């Protein structure tokens, strides 16, 4: 047991908890240094790089509360911007065996608050808040004989972790790595991937610029017997699945916000209860009740905060102020919120 673990055991003990209750030891430790927490996973930014004009790559030092990840998974990353903690999901891009320092590459989307903030404000010493890793876009423990890693745009991040993981465990099967970017200037991780390829003859690399005449994915791009892992926009995944129906895929669709005066349509998903319903008129509290759920609540007029719950994704409108918010992982009062489109609630 090293000193760090011992420290964590001691500070996390029941006796200490009784002495520092009800707030808990982290609420005191963080006042000394934000990353000193023993239960809350946090990281300190140690290096900031800009691979392209639209990205920022952060090297971060997670504290002992971070429990690691499997290549391909994502972590929720929280960053405070003008007093508000914004949370986004990013896939670490390092080998899953090498978690002393994590690396994240963040792409700035149009109108994206967090990406553009980190692109211009991330500095060594900054604190980030992490969650446990999650996600099912992972490789089977028994590695396939032949692997193809296909990515489009910022979908490169989880497959970089897969590539680095395979290489670091001495995988000897064939690895085909194909990355699609709009322009050559958007390509991510090219020098790093080429360095891997030159050191490992079983790694073949192709970078394609789709808007500069590069050939899109089609039949024959990859050998049929490769297990494909693909991450990127839905069109790329569809194209891959056409040729490789058993491809393991993950897509990302940036949230679209379409606010019209017409009645909203879409689905409300209550994730914890595993219940979904088509959007009906009324507040989310009313719709939850109509679905047979009994969420905690009080005043039903927005003052007591008793119905506060986490909106994981989707846009809602505050009926008192008319304000629309599409923030991920946002605390909302469901008694004064109506859905504007698809909404997923942790309820």
């Amino acid at each position: 047991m090293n000193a760090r673990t011992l420290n964590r055991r001691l500070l996390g003990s029941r006796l200490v908890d009784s002495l520092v209750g009800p707030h808990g030891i982290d609420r005191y430790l963080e006042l000394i240094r934000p990353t000193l927490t023993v239960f809350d996973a946090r990281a300190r930014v140690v290096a900031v790089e800009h691979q392209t004009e639209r990205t920022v790559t952060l090297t971060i030092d997670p504290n002992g509360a971070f429990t690691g990840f499997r290549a391909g998974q994502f972590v929720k990353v929280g960053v405070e911007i003008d007093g508000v903690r914004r949370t986004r999901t990013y896939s670490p891009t390092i080998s899953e065996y090498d978690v002393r320092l994590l690396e994240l590459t963040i792409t700035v989307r149009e109108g994206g608050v967090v990406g553009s903030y980190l692109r211009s404000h991330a500095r060594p010493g900054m604190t980030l808040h992490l969650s446990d890793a999650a996600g099912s876009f992972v490789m089977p423990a028994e590695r396939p004989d032949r692997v193809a890693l296909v990515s489009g745009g910022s979908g490169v991040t989880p497959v970089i972790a897969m590539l680095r993981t395979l290489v670091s465990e001495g995988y000897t099967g064939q690895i085909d790595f194909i990355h699609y970017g709009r322009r050559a200037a958007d390509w991510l991780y090219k020098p790093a991937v080429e360095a891997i390829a030159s050191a490992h003859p079983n790694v073949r690399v192709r970078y394609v610029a789709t808007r500069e005449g590069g050939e899109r994915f089609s039949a024959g791009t990859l050998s049929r017997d490769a297990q494909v892992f693909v991450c990127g926009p839905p069109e790329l995944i569809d194209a891959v699945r056409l040729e490789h129906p058993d491809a393991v895929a993950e897509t990302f669709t940036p949230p679209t916000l379409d606010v019209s005066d017409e009645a909203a349509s879409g689905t409300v998903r209550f994730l914890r209860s595993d219940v979904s319903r088509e959007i009906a008129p009324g507040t989310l509290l009313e719709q939850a009740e109509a679905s047979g759920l009994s969420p905690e609540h009080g005043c039903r007029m927005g003052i007591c905060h008793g119905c506060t719950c986490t909106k994981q994704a989707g846009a809602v409108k505050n009926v008192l102020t008319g304000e629309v918010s599409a923030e991920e992982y946002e605390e909302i009062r469901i008694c004064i919120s109506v859905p504007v489109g698809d909404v997923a609630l942790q309820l």
Partner: protein
Amino acid sequence: MPITYGNLTPEDIEALGAELDAIRDRVVAELGEPDLEYIRKLIKAQRGLELGGRALLEFGWLPPLWLAGTAALSVSKILDNMEIGHNVMHGQYDWTQIPELNSQSFEWDTACPGDQWRHSHNYVHHTYTNVHGLDRDIGYGILRISEEQEWNPYYLGNLIWATMLMLAFEWGVAVHDLESDQVLAGNKKLDRRMLKQIWKKGGSQALKDYVLFPLLAGPGAPFTFAGNFTANVVRNIWAFSIIFCGHFPEGVEEFSAEDQAGETRGEWYLRQMLGSANITGGPLFHIMSGNLSFQIEHHLFPDIPARRYASISEDVREICERYGLPYNKGPLHKQLFSVFKKLARLSLPTPGAVTRVPEPPSGGEGGPLDKSTTAGSEASAGPVREREPEPALA
């Protein structure tokens, strides 16, 4: 009957509501980094005072250290409960999306479980403020603080009960949501789950203050114990004083369930203004009172960070003047004296009031008649949880 005041028409009341909504929107739009920095600075100060106070009390057998430690821990508990705990649990910092400042998961350094407080205070008291039979903060089920409460001989001890509540306030608050008066009167069943919650929270508070930290002091244990006990009592007296000045001074209005039923947002605002009173004082006093000295502003905007109330109060005062509404305020000693004068007056029967069959708040003593009378005359006081409120939301 919807409430009104003076010559205000229903249209005036809705205009009043719209003006207050506009203040709310303006302030909410301004919230940002400085508000977060403020509460973090306060938390840092509180945790520092707490650690410092507890460290000094480990050497409590040295009188100057005992005094300094007890003072630091008292201030720490007051800050924790009022400017931090009460306000965070109201959702004043929910907009930050920071888990440790989340209203629904925050716990405070007092015997009352956060969940029960969120129900009895944020929901019941703030929704039904000063409505007889619905707002259980009127008399807390043990005091006579309003003429509307039927007198009975139990209330001869009004001042004694109030003093006892003051000294043991954290425990009074802890059992408040159990509605033990209703349980004793046979109107409600004892909620064992809630009782267990209180036992667990109150128990861990007592374990920390009265067993663990004294044991750490070794032979100095009695001094540490005494210091922790004193700090809890100081906090109790202070919190009681501030809170009782919020709604009980003379001139604060009370309402009936009929007044409240089906009210509009404007009427809800009006009721909050008429049913609350402020305490005047300097900036440090406001922080120590959790800005509950701005009780009127707090009741209008319970989930806006309390540091904003001082500046909001200027607009609210101006609105009150324009609409001819009272703005009840006074220094602490004056407001508190007013409260105790009222408690003394109400310990005796109200002259001219029609005396019906007495209803002792602790049932079982008044004979079989008692139960039916209570059930009959306080029908509206039925269990609030089951009530279907009609919000002002259109």
